[in-house]
Structure formats: structure tokens, C-alpha cells
């Protein structure tokens, strides 16, 4: 059954996509150095298999998957491993990373096929090839794709949803991908349908991207049961649970995953990347990044090698303006502010948003006035007001009883709070505190 193409609650932040929505994707020259943190995705980080001084070609394995929920890491350019050590990670920590001095003399040519032809593979072989290629979700959360494509035997998947909402303000990578590479989205979807043995798929795109809707509709394969749906423009329309409600009118039970309601959700960029990986024969070593915000002079959408530093991206976008003040990885609703220009782009980095001093939020908070706006905003119907008050008193266990685990840190409560209480930050803190202690 088709859903109502919208979900309840949520917020309407300014879209601010006009900065880059019409800027075609451009490939950047290779920077002099790339930094590849071993932790690129959810699950366990990869294990380095190279040493300092090793010469690597583009696509060579730098790190191996460490367990099932992990993926290999590949060299995104030909060059020499110059260092293995700690490097500032986008999550704010120092984390193990491989530094790669890019060989300026290398043609960076496509190597002989590293990923097999997809047409010759059975479903299990396809999933394995996707895993080997290091594919993770490119919508931001960066969960290893092969895990989603390997549901347990007792779970029956009936529908694949392709997420083209891109509900975060500013970002246009998914948008441009759909406009410029719609066939890749469809090919990636076709491959995933084969992986899962699923006959039906739906593509959900927010209504504010008519050109993307048109491009995706115009290239729709005739032999597959795939439908395209224009969705209400509202944040967080692209959250898995919200998308499933919008398209299928199914509520993912609390504490469960989309697969428990028979659904696998994949981002359009992930679909396009799967297609590209099989087309070019190279693993996931580059991605499209929106570099935008009023803090850069020439915002744009760029294809860059994984590991490109903010410094090089900002330079490609014309440099920082005088009043640039804050640099955010991902969208402004959920993205993390970065403290240094040396921080590299990960596989899951959707965008680099540079905010000017005028764009940043005030840092002063007021006491909670119990206006209840956060309750009207929360898309999973939590009581952020209560959770926030508990968090300020460090009453973590009571937060757990009040369903903190269901919070996906979408930021709607913090966006709407007139007292500017950093609710998502408090919830993140509480989640971390609860993780540290043994489950009761």
C-alpha cells in the first residue's frame, strides 16, 4: 500500500540549496596528500595492511575489513604511504589514519578491473563484490552496504526504497547525482534488487527537486517494478523511518530495523556508487561532495578522492570568505563542526558547509520555558523537553526509560527550541554515558 507521501511532525528549515543545485558536478585534480582514516563507517574500522614507504596504485587495498560489519579501505590515488598514525578525524577525535603522498607523475589511470562484472554474478557473489569494493551508505550514516544487503534468513524483504530526499539544507550531491547520473541510480537499484531477490522498489524524492524527479522518471527501466514518488519537503523526510512511513505507511517498531517491516533503504548516491563500482571495476575511492555555504566564494559539487582535506576542497570552491566562521561536515541539521582544515573527507561525507558569522547560531542558552515546540517537532514522538531536563541533571537511566534509544539525533528539537538548549548534544552525551555502563 502506498503511504501518504509525508510523515508527522518534523521541521521546515530554510533549504538554501540554490547555492549549488544548478552547479554541475566537477572533478578536481588530485591533491598532494590524502588522509584516509581507518574508521570510515559504522561498525569496526578497517585494519591497515600497508606500511610506511609502501608504493600503492589507485584502488589497491590499504586496509582489510575487520569482521562482518566492516569494509576494506582502498587507495584513492597512486602514491606512497607516508605515515601511519593518529590524525584528526571528522568525529572530533584523533584516530588511526593512513597518509598517502600522491604521486604527481602518476597518470592515476584506471587499473585493470578489480571488481568483477556484475552480470556474471549470483546474489551472494554480488554482495561479496560490493563488500570487497568497500561500499558504504553515502547518505551520511555510512553503514556498510553489504550488511543491509544480507538480511537474516528469517527476514523477508519485499521492497527496496531508494532515498533521494536529501532533506538536509544546503546539500545537493544526491540531487546532482539524480540529474546527471540517473541511469547509474537505476543500475545500482537493479543490482541491489538482484542481491535481495526483491521484485519491487520505490524511489522517494522531495518535491523541491523537480529536475531530479524528471530525470529519474525519464530513465526509469521498463522491465522492473520501480515507481518514483514526489514527497513532501520536510526535514527529516530522508530518515529511514520517516521515508518508510511516507512511502509505505509502515511504522518501523521501536528498537527494530527497516528490515523488520520488510524494507531495505538505500541512498541514491549509494545506488549510483554500486553501479559505478561495477562499471569502472574500481572500488569506492571517490565520492561527490557539495562544498557550499555563504562562507566559500564559489560553491559547487565536486568529485573528490576519499581522504581529500577540507583545505583542498575549500580552495576548489574559491577559498573562504572573510567572515567564514564554522565548517560543518554533512548538513547543518546533523553535521559535525570541524576544528581544522586538515580534516579529510570520509566515504560518508556528503558535504562541507561553510557558515559565515551571521549564519551561525548564538551560543547563549536560556532556561527551558516548557513551550512544547520540541514535542511538536520530534518525528519519533519523544518528549525532548523531559529528556533535556533529565540530561541536565545527568539522570541517564531515567532518560533510557523515556526511550532515549529511539532518538536518532535528527536535530529537530534543537532547531525549534527558542531557549537554544543544545538538546541533540545532550542526548548524544547521554547515549555515550549509557553505552559506557553495563546494561541493566
Amino acid at each position, binding site marked *: 500500500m502506498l503511504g501518504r507521501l509525508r510523515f508527522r511532525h518534523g521541521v521546515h528549515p530554510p533549504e538554501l540549496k540554490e547555492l549549488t543545485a544548478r552547479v554541475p558536478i566537477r572533478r578536481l585534480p588530485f591533491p598532494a596528500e590524502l588522509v584516509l582514516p581507518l574508521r570510515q563507517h559504522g561498525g569496526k574500522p578497517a585494519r591497515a595492511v600497508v606500511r610506511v614507504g609502501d608504493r600503492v596504485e589507485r584502488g589497491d587495498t590499504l586496509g582489510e575489513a575487520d569482521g562482518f560489519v566492516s569494509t576494506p579501505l582502498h587507495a584513492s590515488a597512486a602514491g606512497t604511504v607516508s605515515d601511519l598514525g593518529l590524525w584528526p578525524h571528522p568525529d572530533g577525535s584523533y584516530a588511526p589514519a593512513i597518509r598517502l603522498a600522491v604521486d604527481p607523475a602518476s597518470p592515476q589511470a584506471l587499473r585493470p578491473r578489480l571488481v568483477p562484472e556484475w552480470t556474471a554474478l549470483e546474489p551472494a557473489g554480488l554482495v561479496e563484490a560490493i563488500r570487497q569494493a568497500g561500499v558504504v551508505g553515502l547518505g551520511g550514516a555510512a553503514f556498510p552496504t553489504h550488511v543491509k544487503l544480507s538480511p537474516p534468513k528469517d527476514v523477508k524483504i519485499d521492497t527496496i526504497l531508494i532515498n533521494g530526499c536529501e532533506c538536509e539544507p544546503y546539500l545537493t550531491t544526491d540531487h546532482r547525482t539524480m540529474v546527471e547520473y540517473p541511469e547509474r541510480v537505476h543500475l545500482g537499484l537493479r543490482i541491489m534488487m538482484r542481491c535481495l531477490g526483491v521484485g519491487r522498489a520505490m524511489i522517494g524524492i522531495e518535491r523541491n527537486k523537480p529536475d531530479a524527479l524528471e530525470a529519474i522518471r525519464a530513465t526509469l527501466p521498463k522491465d522492473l517494478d520501480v515507481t518514483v514518488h514526489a514527497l513532501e519537503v520536510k526535514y527529516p523526510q530522508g530518515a529511514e523511518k520517516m521515508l518508510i512511513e511516507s512511502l509505505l505507511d509502515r511504522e518501523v517498531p521501536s528498537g527494530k530495523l527497516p528490515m523488520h517491516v520488510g524494507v531495505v533503504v538505500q541512498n541514491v548516491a549509494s545506488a549510483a556508487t554500486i553501479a559505478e563500482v561495477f562499471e569502472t571495476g574500481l572500488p569506492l575511492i571517490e565520492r561527490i561532495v557539495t562544498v557550499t555555504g555563504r562562507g566559500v566564494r564559489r560553491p559547487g559539487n565536486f568529485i573528490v578522492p576519499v581522504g581529500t582535506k577540507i583545505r583542498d576542497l575549500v580552495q576548489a570552491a574559491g577559498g573562504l570568505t572573510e567572515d567564514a566562521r564554522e565548517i560543518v561536515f554533512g548538513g547543518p541539521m546533523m553535521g559535525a563542526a570541524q576544528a581544522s582544515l586538515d580534516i579529510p573527507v570520509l566515504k560518508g561525507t556528503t558535504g562541507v558547509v561553510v557558515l559565515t558569522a551571521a549564519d551561525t547560531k548564538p551560543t547563549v542558552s536560556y532556561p527551558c520555558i516548557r513551550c512544547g515546540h520540541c514535542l511538536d517537532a520530534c518525528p*519519533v514522538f519523544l*518528549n525532548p523537553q523531559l529528556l533535556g531536563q533529565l540530561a541536565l541533571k545527568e539522570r541517564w537511566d531515567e532518560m533510557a526509560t523515556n526511550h532515549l534509544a529511539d532518538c536518532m539525533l535528527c536535530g529537530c528539537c534543537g532547531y525549534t527550541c527558542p531557549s537554544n538548549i543544545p538538546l541533540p548534544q545532550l542526548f548524544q552525551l547521554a547515549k555515550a554515558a549509557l553505552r559506557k555502563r553495563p546494561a541493566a
Partner: protein
Amino acid sequence: MSAPPLLVTASPHVGAGDSTPKIMWNVVASLVPVVLAATWFFGPSVPLVVGAALVGAVGAERAFGRRGTLADGSAVITGLLLGLTLPAGLPLWMAFVGGAFSIAIGKLIFGGLGQNVFNPALLGRAFLQASFPVALTTWPLPGTAETWWALRGDNFALPFASARVADTLTGATPLGRMKFEHQPTALWDLVLGTTTGSLGETSALLILLCGGYLALRNYLNWRIPASLFAAVAGLETLLHALAPARFPDALFMLFSGGLMLGAMYMATDLVTSPVTNLGCWIFGAGIGVLVLVIRLWGGLAEGVMYAILIMNALVPFLNRWTQPRLFGTTRIAPGR
């Protein structure tokens, strides 16, 4: 490229643009027309009484509150609202004491903004009513063109000195007349405000408009006045149909007394009303029912103040009972 000084804050990095002071000052601005209208009806006593309550509230916030909290505007709202619940002829020192009580005992003692259980202005008014019952129930008549300039009572009486008998015409409020003399008041007088009553009790229409502005901007939860009006109108229509002689009609009940001011400005106080929408429906309806019970069967002519204070006390329970249904569950989320 040299590294600029980068700001690192937590997400979300964009906001809806509202802030607590902005909400508060908007409420203050929306009360200005109400004060002006009261001045139109009751003359120069109005700015004096409202001003005294305001100075009491702001002074208490400045003296006992945390540094900088005056700027959030909430003490100004309390002062204005308290002033609007008082009769025009009230001695100024009483209004001042009421304002100081509202903020010091009604708000700061609980921990300041956001922490108080009861509406501070109404708590101040309840304190005054208990302390100075006669002064609080002496209602001057609205002025005429010739008498507009006259004070409406002994505004400048010294503290605890017995007030001189003012040569002002006073009279019972429409509710008092209805309750104790069974005298109705023309509906149009109630709507426009050309009757006796406290300063803000009078122009129901204007209060509805000013409060409506706040509702449109989502600075008050419209469900509270909606359910309050619905409860009063529904119940009173039923009673009036059963016994027209004993019970006045619903419009009289809606537009008389402090019901409009209470419904639009007191009950909707963000801090002392429920956070859940269902809670707000119940809260508003509860106030409506209590208002009628007090007005019709209680010893007082007017019951809005106590109705709201009683429901204020139930807000923590309403919040607990009306927790939202968690996404992906059918059970009610357990409260604390």
C-alpha cells in the same frame, strides 16, 4: 591559506529563529494595546496601577533574580498581567507589593524562569485578594468624557493607612450583578469593554485579537483557549437551555469577567501550561469547567484566577498522563 579561527558548536547549526526573549517581548508588545484600551476606559489611574505592578515585578527580578534575567522580558509580562487584573482605584503600594510578590514568591523562589508551577501574576493577584479583599473588589465605573482625567480611587494612599473615601462612582462587575442581583449586562458592552471590572477584564474583543496574534506566531498554544472556550460555551449552553432563569447564556459567560484575559494570556503561559498538546486540551477544558463551577455555585462572582491556579497545580500530572505515543509502538510511553 591561513587557518581562520573556527567555531565548533554542536548540531543543529541552524535554528528556527525564535528565542525566548523574542517570545516574551512579543507578548509584552501584544499587551500594549490592552493597556492603552484600559487607559481609554478608566483614565490615568490605569498607567499608574499597571506601572506600580510593573515596577514591583521588575524590581523584584532585579533585586533577587540572577544577573541579566531582566532582559528576557518575563518579569515585564508578569508585571503587566498582574496590573491588568487589578481595579483602577487600587492604592499603588498594593499593586507594587503584588508585583514584587508575583516575581519573588511566584517565580524566583521556584528557581526562576521556567521553574515556577503557578502563573506568577495570578499568584500575586491571589495574594492581594487575600490580603486586601475590599480594595481588590472596589470596581470604579468607566469614565465619561468630563471625568476621564480623574483618578478612579485613592491611588496614592499611604501603605496601611486607611484609604480616603474617593468620590468616584463604583459599581458591581457584570458577573457580580448577575450573581448577586440577577442583573444582566448588554453583550456589546462586554465585548467592547465599556463596563466595570479590572483593567484587563474589560475589552474582550481586543484581548482576543492581541492573543490571536500570539497564537498565529505559535507563541501560545491555541488549544488552551480553544478548549477553554468550548468547555464554557458547551456547558453553559446546556445549563441555560435547562434553566434559562437561573443560568445566563454562554456568550455572557465567555465575554464577562477575566475569562478572555485568563484564557488568552494567563492559561497560555508557556511555563505553567502542559507541554503536550493533549495535555493542553485537557488543561483548557478543565479551566473552563472550574470557572463555571466557581461562578455558578461558588461564593465568588469570578473564578478564572482560582480555576487557572488549580489547573496549574495539575500540569505535572497532565504532562505525565499525556506523554506522546512513541513512534513504532502502540503503548503509552511511561512517564517519570
